[in-house]
């Protein structure tokens, strides 16, 4: 192709192309996805609401319930279940953020720009997953730790607080980050499958919050196991010092199940992402 008549108004970046610096690499796709997620306000607002809801609601419930819990008037509710209680609501934000990472590209049509710049679809998906999970792991751990400290402050005033060096407490802090990161990826996979924000949010919230509680109504062992295995039930025990429901899977087993379920959903979403027209 003749490029001898290039006018100066369009300075040539083609030199870079010919010297081989300009190549599509995974690191560059990752950098681009990080740039995407940090340059929209919706990310900031979602993460702020994640933090505020988790920490604020934990502090409120502990302030309100600590007295009854200490006197035993609150029945035999496990005190440890209150210490990060607000995360139950904060987690919606993590789910929504994950969904938006996928669906916002479809609602705007930007997905075609993304795939024109980086046609390797699995690489794009892995980059999105890495950026989202990394961000939520850090923010989730901070949130979980802050929520515990806020809740434990009120529990401690009634003499039923936990020691920060308690292994379950440390596990809860890191577990909050792990759970929210996986939940975000779950949302990403769901968003990529459905390509529609409202639809994916509805299905996601229904799956995690409503169906997870309803399957307990199924009689017998089937109901017990369904309850144990529902994604929200299996995953969230890692983010609480103690669980309200003692029949759920243990924290690490539960997380393992949730990671497995999310991985399956992500593989299905990725396979379809690769196969479908953008």
């Amino acid at each position, binding site marked *: 192709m003749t490029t001898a*008549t290039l006018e100066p108004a369009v*300075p040539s970046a083609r030199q*870079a192309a010919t010297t081989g610096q300009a190549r*599509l690499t995974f690191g560059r796709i990752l950098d681009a996805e990080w740039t995407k997620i940090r340059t929209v306000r*919706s990310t900031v607002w979602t993460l702020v609401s994640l933090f505020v809801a988790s920490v604020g609601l934990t502090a409120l419930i502990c302030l309100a319930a600590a007295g009854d819990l200490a006197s035993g008037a609150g029945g035999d509710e496990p005190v440890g279940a209150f210490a990060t209680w607000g995360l139950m609501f904060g987690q919606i934000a993590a789910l929504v953020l994950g969904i938006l990472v996928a669906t916002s590209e479809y609602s705007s049509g*930007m997905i075609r*720009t993304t795939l024109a710049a980086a046609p390797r679809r699995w690489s794009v998906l892995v980059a999105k997953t890495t950026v989202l999970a990394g961000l939520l792991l850090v923010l989730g751990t901070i949130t979980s730790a802050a929520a515990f400290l806020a809740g434990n402050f009120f529990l401690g005033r009634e003499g039923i607080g936990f020691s920060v060096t308690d292994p379950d407490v440390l596990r809860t802090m890191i577990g909050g980050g792990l759970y929210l990161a996986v939940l975000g990826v779950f949302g990403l996979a769901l968003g990529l499958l459905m390509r529609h924000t409202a639809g994916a949010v509805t299905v996601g919230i229904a799956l995690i919050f409503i169906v997870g509680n309803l399957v307990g109504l199924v009689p017998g062992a089937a109901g017990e196991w369904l309850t144990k295995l529902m994604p929200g039930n299996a995953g969230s025990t890692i983010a609480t010092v103690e669980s309200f429901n003692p029949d759920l899977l243990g924290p690490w087993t539960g997380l393992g199940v949730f990671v497995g379920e999310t991985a399956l959903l992500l593989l299905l979403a990725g396979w379809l992402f690769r196969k479908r027209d953008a």
Partner: protein
Amino acid sequence: MITAERLTKRYGDTTAVDAIDFTVRPGSVTGFLGPNGAGKSTTMRMVMGLDHPSGGRVTVNGRAYRDLPAPLHEVGALLEAKAIHGGRSAYHHLLWLAKTNGIPRRRVDEVIGLVGLDAVAHKRSGGFSLGMGQRLGIAAALLGDPGVLLFDEPVNGLDPEGIRWIRTLIRSLAAEGRTVFVSSHLMSEMALTADHLLVIGRGQILADTGMADFIARNAAAHVRVRSPQGGVLAEALRERGWTIRRDDDGALLVEGASAEQVGDVAGSRGLYLHELSVVNASLEEAFMRLTADSVEYHARTDQPVPAGV
């Protein structure tokens, strides 16, 4: 260079693109012309590797799109206006795009200047007008300084100034030796920008020809002549074997004759002429004739439009 070989796209029973072959060459503007729903956008998305062909293949510079080592350096595309996250600024949109292909940050500033978006580069793009969105899309297409450019309906919804700007840009990109592929459903627009024409209808290539050839072949001219002795003149012209029609204002439309011949006939009979001119058939009409059978949805024009519509 874009090459399609028996490129096909089916959606269920519908064949949107039907085993088409074409080549888009560097150094000129190739117009991709067809009515809405003819398969233009589908074809362009297949070129970009966004839609998977049901059959056949299409390559850019000899490679499938997804095998290009640095796609933005080889292909730039404006596929739809405002395919941007409304919450992100133009600058950040171009920045993430640049990062994917290792394009330096200063190139982002360059293309912003090139399309004239300097003043609004750091504002959220959600508030952009269609014209500004189009300019941002073009900035994105030029980011990697690619040798191949695709524009899908680039003038849609633009004001006259914007249309002229895009037209000039497209012409200059081709003059620099780039391969430029522009789709439109407007023949008049193509006549002004394209050197070569690919006409598509119902997923099939109806014409693959130079613009000049297309005009010469399809734009049959006729002569318009007005005379106070119209009846006598019409008789005289008919004697020469030319087809005569009468225009609304009484002028005669003569097919098959040149203006000189018509003037000579009138002169030889001593008839007065008030008007003698050559009228070129519109390219739009030629295009309509060509694609008449391939338009998906016909509007009937023989019925009066109901009042109030």
